[in-house]
């Protein structure tokens, strides 16, 4: 099976007649969870990721007393794949959450200063990534879902030491849209948006997050390596895909 897939990919064929640098169909829905301050359900092919956003009153970080906090975590639910096991966060889910967190933070996607309430009180924004079905490329799906959910997040009101979460109309201030593109290297071939099957035979993975102008986060994964020309090629494609992905987010958040 693996050899067959490798052979297909090295002869330039992918399932569903997909080109090497094409995404599968991407669907984005926002506001799917009413109890959360913001949420989004994103599918890329059969991969499906749900992100819920909650805001709580917290203390600021000592080195940033006038900014809110961003806390990103990811759950690879056992219901999402026979390969996911229950238990505490494993290196894979920690890596996923940290890469999404880096992209959001580096791109200054949220206006962190707008989360200041009063001295020693700020909003903490919790981005919880829940993988519902795994078929590859969790990085791009998770960042798309996080970005979409944040854009539709309504900020609770803090009044008389209480948090009011109902009948809100002020949106969280989002300054910048960042998206990522993830590539897999199988043998010597680079492909965009790998499926679960393709990820099971990839030797290396490369994720680039960009905001249209700047590279905002990079994460290379697995044992395989990349040549500099391959990196250049992936960076180029990542910037080319930006508008396409941004448009999907914008349409889902109108």
């Amino acid at each position: 099976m693996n050899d067959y897939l490798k052979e297909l990919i090295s002869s330039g064929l992918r399932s569903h007649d997909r080109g090497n640098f094409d995404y599968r169909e991407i669907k984005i829905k926002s506001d799917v969870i009413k109890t959360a301050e913001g949420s989004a359900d994103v599918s890329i092919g059969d991969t499906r990721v749900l992100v819920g956003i909650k805001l709580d009153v917290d203390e600021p970080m000592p080195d940033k007393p006038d900014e809110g906090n961003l806390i990103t975590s990811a759950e690879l639910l056992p219901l999402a794949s026979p390969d996911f096991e229950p238990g505490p966060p494993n290196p894979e889910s920690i890596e996923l959450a940290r890469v999404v967190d880096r992209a959001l933070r580096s791109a200054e996607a949220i206006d962190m200063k707008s989360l200041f309430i009063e001295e020693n009180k700020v909003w903490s924004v919790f981005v919880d990534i829940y993988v519902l079905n795994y078929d590859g490329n969790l990085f791009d799906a998770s960042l798309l879902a996080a970005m979409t959910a944040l854009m539709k997040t309504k900020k609770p009101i803090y009044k008389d030491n209480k948090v009011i979460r109902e009948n809100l109309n002020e949106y969280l201030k989002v300054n910048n849209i960042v998206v990522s593109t993830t590539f897999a290297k199988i043998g010597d071939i680079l492909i965009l948006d790998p499926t679960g099957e393709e990820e099971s035979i990839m030797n290396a993975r490369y994720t680039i997050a960009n905001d249209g102008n700047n590279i905002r986060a990079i994460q290379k994964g697995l044992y395989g390596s990349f040549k500099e020309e391959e990196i250049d090629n992936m960076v180029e494609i990542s910037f080319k895909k930006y508008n396409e992905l941004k448009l999907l987010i914008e349409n889902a958040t109108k």
Partner: protein
Amino acid sequence: MEKPQLIVNGLRLDGRKPDELRPIKIETDIIKNASGSAYMEWGNNKVIAAVYGPKEALPKHTGDPEKAIVKCVYSMTPFSSLEEHGRSGPNRRAIEISKVTKEVFENIILVENFPRSEIDIFIEILQADGGTRAAGITAAAVALATSGIPMRDIPYAVSAGRVGDTVIIDLNKLEDNYSDADMPVAIAPRNNEILLMQMDGGLTREQFKKALEMIKNAGKVITKIQREAIKKPYEDLINKYGAKYE
């Protein structure tokens, strides 16, 4: 704390030029129980790397009939930074660094030579001043080489970053905290294959290329220091006994 001006008159706060590395010293075989080990001082970083194995993979079911599995633990002592006492146990950052470090060495070790075995790499940061994951990988590469475990190459790692419009190499802790981008990279110098790359902050495509160029130039210096450290015990022997090897 206010953001300090990191570059004054073209020089960094520790007096370095943008493309200048901190001094690096490596000593090998400092842990007698290990198959290979190295102690490194990279600027104010102090790092120990030790390798155990190849040995039987345990628990047995984790063994791979086709190759050795590589395990890596990167950890910082609770007294390694100027901040408060660190918490015990690995935090999320350490787990991520352990994972990407392991992946570097899975590539570089001839794992196919040792089925059903495991090779353990331990990296302990005793004193931290920015760039510890790069220092850890660079030191672990030397520890592996001295252990005699066959490798395709001796990789090095170093960070590049950006302060305003200036791309800089080898960020110290202060620069790491206040820079506009940070990009640790590990490379196999023989063919310049990229084994690790992470980035945060912001880089234009031009700055990205410049950073990679600076990393490769720094790599020439680091590679030389690694090789000298690996050779040194043998040269000491030759000097002591006067033996000649052709």
